[in-house]
């Protein structure tokens, strides 16, 4: 049994307290360790992806107890891909945080950052529903700290809303887990998959309630309308590198929906029939529309980006809720794209803040470093709005293509294409107000507190753009890989047999006391 698969969880878990205990007053040492840790994570997760790329499944029993009694970690192609995406994103976000000096504006940024990574990576790797809850809590409690990093009244207010909303989500998650355990007597995902299929047709009341509760919890995480109200203010008020890292957090919800609703409650399960077409798809379409209308209506650049995240999550959820291999493959392709594009836009919004001091969408004098920032915003907007030549366009094409067979195909096409147009107008309006109209306004004294962004900030954003370009150029390969993932998800025999049939430690009962 190889231990590599637990390393992405153990490494940040040890690094974070080390940073707190040993390097509390030395921001330089903190940066070195944090950066080295994330770089090691990238290498680790790349090697995990390489190990499972032939369709094998990595499997780890904690304390060697066999499933379903012990907690297991499972790395198949889907989870390792998400792990790699997270660590690569974290690397560039960390570079930006160091370059822009955000990590020095409050305390313990790097320790919280590592705990956040631990939670996210654990949520991707675990094969146990209760363990998923625990990792959700780890990532949430770290995100509470990161969200209010550097303080300020507005940020604290938004932080309270964010924390309370997520606490209610966690409570709901526990209710769902309790009902699942009461109905089936297990919380291991592979074991649940077998047992849920065995529930008789007339006894499905409890499990149906549990399935819907669980979907609600994941929909809160994925910011699906009408459960999206926590997202705009918290993402807009969070420090820019934190908001960029949060771009992966909504995808944790999407990942959990893909995992649980292909494995435990597959689309052909009679008890939960209609959950996806009747409820999830309309909600996803409304999210897409509301997100992109929000882009058009926003009065500040950070709100605009936050609403574009809601819109792109709507897009991901539209693809997921069609629930066939082609649409899941499209969703996974779009998840990678929207994570990178969302992160890039949050970082660019911070460049604007650095250059002119605020993010209001009003004509002001040209900001410092306006040419570079304007060019980057242009490219980021193209990516997010889904125009050619960047990968958002290909992702939308794949989603549209996958929806050909769907009953609501007309609605999907109308809303996807209509919302694209709305978002193009929204981004164009924001870009022209912030960058073009600036040249017509009289130049006065430079605003206090502004300055030129650091070179490292540009490197971080440039790196994310390079990934987006690579995601476009190698779209065929990536889509082939996501198609393989989707096929594997709907035919999960390897996963099941490895988790349920590998023997573990036996407890030695000698009787008596």
């Amino acid at each position, binding site marked *: 049994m190889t231990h590599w698969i637990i390393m992405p969880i153990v490494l940040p878990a040890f690094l974070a307290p080390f940073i707190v205990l040993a390097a509390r007053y030395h921001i330089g040492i903190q940066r070195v360790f944090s950066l080295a840790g994330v770089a090691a994570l990238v290498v680790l997760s790349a090697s995990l992806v390489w190990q499972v790329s032939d369709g094998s499944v990595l499997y780890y029993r904690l304390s060697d107890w066999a499933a379903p009694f012990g907690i297991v970690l499972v790395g198949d192609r889907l989870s390792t891909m998400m792990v790699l995406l997270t660590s690569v994103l974290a690397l560039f976000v960390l570079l930006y945080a160091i370059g822009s000096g955000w990590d020095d504006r409050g305390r313990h940024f790097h320790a919280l950052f590592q705990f956040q990574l631990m939670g996210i990576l654990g949520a991707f790797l675990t094969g146990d529903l209760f363990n998923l809850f625990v990792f959700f809590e780890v990532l949430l409690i770290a995100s509470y700290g990161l969200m209010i990093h550097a303080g300020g*009244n507005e940020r604290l*207010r938004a932080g309270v809303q964010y924390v309370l909303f997520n606490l209610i989500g966690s409570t709901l998650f526990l209710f769902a887990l309790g009902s699942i355990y009461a109905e089936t007597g297990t919380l291991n995902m592979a074991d649940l998959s077998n047992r849920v299929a065995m529930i008789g047709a007339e006894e499905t009341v409890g499990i149906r309630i549990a399935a819907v509760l669980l979907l609600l919890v994941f929909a809160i995480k994925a910011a699906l309308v009408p459960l999206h109200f926590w997202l705009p203010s918290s993402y807009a008020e969070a420090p820019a590198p934190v908001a960029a890292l949060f771009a992966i957090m909504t995808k944790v919800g999407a990942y959990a929906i893909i995992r649980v609703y292909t494995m435990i409650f597959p689309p052909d399960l009679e008890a939960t029939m209609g959950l996806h077409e009747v409820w999830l798809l309309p909600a996803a379409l409304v999210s897409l529309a509301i997100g992109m209308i929000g882009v058009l209506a926003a009065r500040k650049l950070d709100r605009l980006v936050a609403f574009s995240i809601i819109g792109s999550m709507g897009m991901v959820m539209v693809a997921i809720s069609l629930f066939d291999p082609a649409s899941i493959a499209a969703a996974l392709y779009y998840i990678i794209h929207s994570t990178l594009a969302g992160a890039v836009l949050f970082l660019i919004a911070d460049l604007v803040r650095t250059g002119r001091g605020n993010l209001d969408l009003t004509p002001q004098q040209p900001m410092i470093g306006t040419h570079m920032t304007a060019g980057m915003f242009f490219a980021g907007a193209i990516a997010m709005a889904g125009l050619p030549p960047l990968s958002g366009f290909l992702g939308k094409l794949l989603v549209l293509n996958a929806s050909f067979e769907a009953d609501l195909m007309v609605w999907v096409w109308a809303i996807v294409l209509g919302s694209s147009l709305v978002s193009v107008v929204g981004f164009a309006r924001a870009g022209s107000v912030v960058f073009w109209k600036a040249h017509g306004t009289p130049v006065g004294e430079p605003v206090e507190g502004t300055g030129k962004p650091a070179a490292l900030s540009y490197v971080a954003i440039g790196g994310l753009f390079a990934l987006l370009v690579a995601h476009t150029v190698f779209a065929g390969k990536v889509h082939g890989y996501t198609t393989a993932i989707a096929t594997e998800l709907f035919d999960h025999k390897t996963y099941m047999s490895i988790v349920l049939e590998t023997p573990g430690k036996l407890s030695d009962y000698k009787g008596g006391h």
Partner: protein
Amino acid sequence: MELLVASAIGVLTAAGIYLVLRLRTFPVILGMSLLTYAVNVFLFASGRLTIGAPPILSDDVTTYTDPLPQALVLTAIVISFGMTAVVVMISLGAYLGSDDDHVDDQPESTGSEASQ
């Protein structure tokens, strides 16, 4: 006993939701605590209610209680305790900073962001 436990969970949940909907920091935190108590009892009951039965294997016992929900509840209690502490600190900071304990955005106090 089932009726008693079920109605207790129901009353706790209802009171928790009512308090959360008050949208002022103090009632909301109290409501969240009531909700977590409710969910803890609910988790506990998910392994079926048994009286006076041991959770550990031994030779002279025939009925057992399920030990797993107890472990789950323990985890949930610890997590919710920590979360409550965090939310108390953050909302205290927000209240002291802005002299306002509304949880939702107030149109007049947020100025230029009233549209949101």
